[in-house]
């Protein structure tokens, strides 16, 4: 079964706008993490939200988690060209095995 599916698949916005992407999952989790990946590069950890948390902030990032709906959202406020990347959510089961979604490709144009 698919776990950690993001939508939209692609998002194109202008600098200064907010970008919102969503992630849905199927099974119970310990936590959910968001990562960024620039084209062909490694995965950069952005933020972790635990299953007993509902919202978390880090700089221009805001993550929400709704365990009843098995969904999470990532909001990037006041986007910059440097935010252009793919964003992945990863769910974490009891062994710490991550399951990644296919990602949301975000393009921020100046």
């Amino acid at each position: 079964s698919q776990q950690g599916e993001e939508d939209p698949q692609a998002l194109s916005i202008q600098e200064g706008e907010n970008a919102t992407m969503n992630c849905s999952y199927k099974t119970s989790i310990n936590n959910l993490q968001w990562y960024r990946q620039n084209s062909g590069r490694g995965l950069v950890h952005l933020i972790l939200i635990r299953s007993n948390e509902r919202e978390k902030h880090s700089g221009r990032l805001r993550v929400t988690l709704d365990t009843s709906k098995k969904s999470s959202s990532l909001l990037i406020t006041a986007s910059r060209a440097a935010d252009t990347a793919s964003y992945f959510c990863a769910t974490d089961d009891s062994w710490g095995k991550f399951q990644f979604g296919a990602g949301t490709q975000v393009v921020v144009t100046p």
Partner: protein
Amino acid sequence: EPEVTQTPSHQVTQMGQEVILRCVPISNHLYFYWYRQILGQKVEFLVSFYNNEISEKSEIFDDQFSVERPDGSNFTLKIRSTKLEDSAMYFCASRTGLNEQFFGPGTRLTVL
């Protein structure tokens, strides 16, 4: 700031050859992982390793794959006889417990 390192950054090999991908996890971490990402696709879990043994592996991680922690610092992934479809980016990751999982920069494996 401590980070996960991986070598080499790019490995080119002929089909049927053995490759060993190397990772140095963050020093106080206890859980180690390998993932792969075929170009344009999602990151897929391969194997998790804890207390010197495999704790979980995916269907991808068949008999051609093995992992080892030969000393206190390195964590290796061996592919015994590479296939064309093994071409991918391989990521190593580590963590202390149920916390952030930190990923290395990846090794791009190209099988010709």
